[in-house]
């Protein structure tokens, strides 16, 4: 005899069941341990590589054009290295053939870390919305950075590589008047949204020259005014370091001042590199009067201005890099500087342990013709 049965489902049980029923498999790209993109894994191979045509494109010289593939087969997620030059590492072990990828496992591909996760569509959509917003914020920050100058008496080149989507680094350069060009790099302590908002505030103040009563040709005045405008206590405990220089076209003098910032490095033809900095605390930490120094600039000299992230790296053996290691990579030959910043960035990456660099990488290169 058939027996009728009434089953009462509690809301709690529904709540627990819903995410699992909806869950799908995703390959997640991580940056500093945070997910930045989700790619659904299905029966069709999901390809990972450096080339434009891949499903997951990783801009990384250690990643092959076609590096690996992931797909669903017989209820399992399978991963296979496709003959990449530098290999694919599953939880630290190099793959030698197709392997089953278990939920929560990590793949190391060049400098990138990928993770296999099962998530509900809603969770992924929420993450994607957040990252779209962060992308917009990043695009805004990058739109504030000036285009490289490829001709004229002062030429520039730069690299800007935040470790997270948003960085506390910012820089700019441009004419103050017919006879003076300013260049500066700012580094707000920390990463992420808060640091980026603060660096954008500082950058906009400098770009708009919105420091009342300040002669922007005098670096010390600029730093004094910034110090008065951005005290830590009024800005959620945030401080920033800065290197600010002004080049006089008429007498070929570079005036500069720095606040808690690494020295800029000036390479004059036939001379050892000069370290340009003034010993002074970061902006916002205490009342202080900054000082300006000046140095003559020979034709053909090249100036490197950067944040500390360019040299505070960890090597493959765990050893920490320092400023002197970085300075040894500098010095440009030939007439142009186009591509010089990228060359230095790649040289630093080659010395660092695999994976993203530890800190934001901002490097500005200026050549005086």
């Amino acid at each position, binding site marked *: 005899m058939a027996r009728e049965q009434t089953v009462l489902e509690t809301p709690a049980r529904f709540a627990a069941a819903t995410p699992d029923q909806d869950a799908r498999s995703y390959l997640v790209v991580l940056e500093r341990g945070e997910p930045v993109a989700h790619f659904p894994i299905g029966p069709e191979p999901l390809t990972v590589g450096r080339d434009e045509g891949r499903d997951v494109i990783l801009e990384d010289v250690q990643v092959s054009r076609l590096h690996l593939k992931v797909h669903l087969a017989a209820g399992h997620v399978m991963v296979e290295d496709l003959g990449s030059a530098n290999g694919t590492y599953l939880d630290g072990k190099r793959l030698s053939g197709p392997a089953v990828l278990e939920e929560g496992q990590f793949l190391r591909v060049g400098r990138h870390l990928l993770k296999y996760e099962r998530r509900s569509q809603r969770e992924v959509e929420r993450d994607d919305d957040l990252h779209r917003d962060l992308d917009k914020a990043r695009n805004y920050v990058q739109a504030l950075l000036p285009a490289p100058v490829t001709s004229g008496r002062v030429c520039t080149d730069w690299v800007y590589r935040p470790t997270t989507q948003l960085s506390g680094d910012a820089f700019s350069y441009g004419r103050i008047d017919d006879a003076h060009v300013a260049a500066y790099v700012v580094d707000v302590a920390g990463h992420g949204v808060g640091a980026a908002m603060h660096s954008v505030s500082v950058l906009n103040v400098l770009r708009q020259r919105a420091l009342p009563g300040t002669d922007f040709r005098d670096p010390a005045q600029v730093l004094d005014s910034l110090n008065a405008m951005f005290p830590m206590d009024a800005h959620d405990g945030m401080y920033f370091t800065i290197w600010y220089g002004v080049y006089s076209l008429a007498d070929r003098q570079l005036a500069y001042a720095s606040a808690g910032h690494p020295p800029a490095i000036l390479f004059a033809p036939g001379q050892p590199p000069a370290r340009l900095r003034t010993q002074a605390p970061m902006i916002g930490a205490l009342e202080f009067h900054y000082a300006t120094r000046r140095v003559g600039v020979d034709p053909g000299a090249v100036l490197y201005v950067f944040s*500390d992230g360019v040299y505070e790296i960890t090597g493959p053996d765990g050893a*920490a890099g*320092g400023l002197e290691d970085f300075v040894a990579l500098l010095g440009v030959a030939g007439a142009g500087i186009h591509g010089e910043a990228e060359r230095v960035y790649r040289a630093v990456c080659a010395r660092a342990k695999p994976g993203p660099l530890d800190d934001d990488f901002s490097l500005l290169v200026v050549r005086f013709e």
Partner: protein
Amino acid sequence: MEMHVKDVDGVVQIALVGRLDSPGVDQVETKFTARLVPAGANGVVDLSGVEFVGSLAIRMFISVGRALARKQKKLVLYAPRPLVNQVFESVSLNTIVPVAADYAAALAAVRG
């Protein structure tokens, strides 16, 4: 990141061990601040076990140092490794938070 604390004659002695990068600071900042600031205690911090300091660590030291200064108390760091000391010098930290060579000098600075 490890943090060891003891109280000796009214001076809070803190030893930090590990990397004071962003994750390291996340691990200790609340404890570090809570141990020193609410009590308004003089503090000396042994950095001989710290391999690296990032900008957030410097921010932590400055914030606590300034909070203590408002209570007429001092925070003194001591025994930084050469690479860590280079970072302190590059940001002129000594103008805000004293950095001593060793424990005896730190105690003298905090009581001076």
